């Protein structure tokens, strides 16, 4: 019982800490927002600001997203086809 209360208190503490941390970050990031919206067309040449942020300003982030997606896909492919390979071996043994 004491463990449960302690863990709930620790979770609430982490929540509050991250809440205040996120609140303190908003003042700085607004400058970045203005820079992106004002300079996207000149810097990247694409009319869609969201797309210029996704593929140009934060390009390496998107590259990591694609890599994560591809890794998940290869994992699903391997897991889904492992069973089939085992059945083929059984058929050969028979």
């Amino acid at each position, binding site marked *: 019982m004491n463990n449960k209360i302690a863990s709930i208190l620790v979770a609430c503490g982490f929540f509050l800490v991250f809440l205040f941390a996120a609140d303190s970050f908003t003042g700085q990031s607004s400058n970045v927002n203005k820079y992106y919206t004002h300079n996207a*067309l000149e810097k990247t*040449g694409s009319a869609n600001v969201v*797309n*210029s942020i996704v593929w140009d300003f934060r390009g390496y982030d998107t*590259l990591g997203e*694609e890599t994560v*997606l591809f890794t998940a896909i290869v994992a699903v492919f391997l897991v*889904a086809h492992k069973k089939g390979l085992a059945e083929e071996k059984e058929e050969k043994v028979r």
Partner: protein
Amino acid sequence: MDIIIKTTTRLLFPLILVFGCYIAMHGHLSPGGGFPGGVIIASAVLLLVIAFTQKEVETQLSEIALEDLKSIAGIALLSIVFLEVVLRPDIMHTQTPFTLWSGGVTIFLNIFGSLVVAFGLIIVIYSLIKEEWKSKKSKW
């Protein structure tokens, strides 16, 4: 499934594919981009797989095609790495904005990104639906 869903799927399938390609290729001009376009293309295959039975689908989409799709997705991912790291900054200063050929290499990044997402999700959908087909209680 019954004949209404089958006929509607047969009519809508190429239109959904074309719409997904449009969303992916015009990502630097209009709302959309590589990820939504790829998901729309994969949703067309999901509709096909839900509406038709195993025999009808497997005449169109075989096991060998799945291997090829996985290879194409990997090659597209490597092309994204190449474009993103090597080629990104240079081309765009000679292009006029708001036309199709603008935004530097963003259009190629959108196309390759949509290839990775679409073929990957097709592989996932097809692998999962094959497990469903193997269990004999399935309605599909």
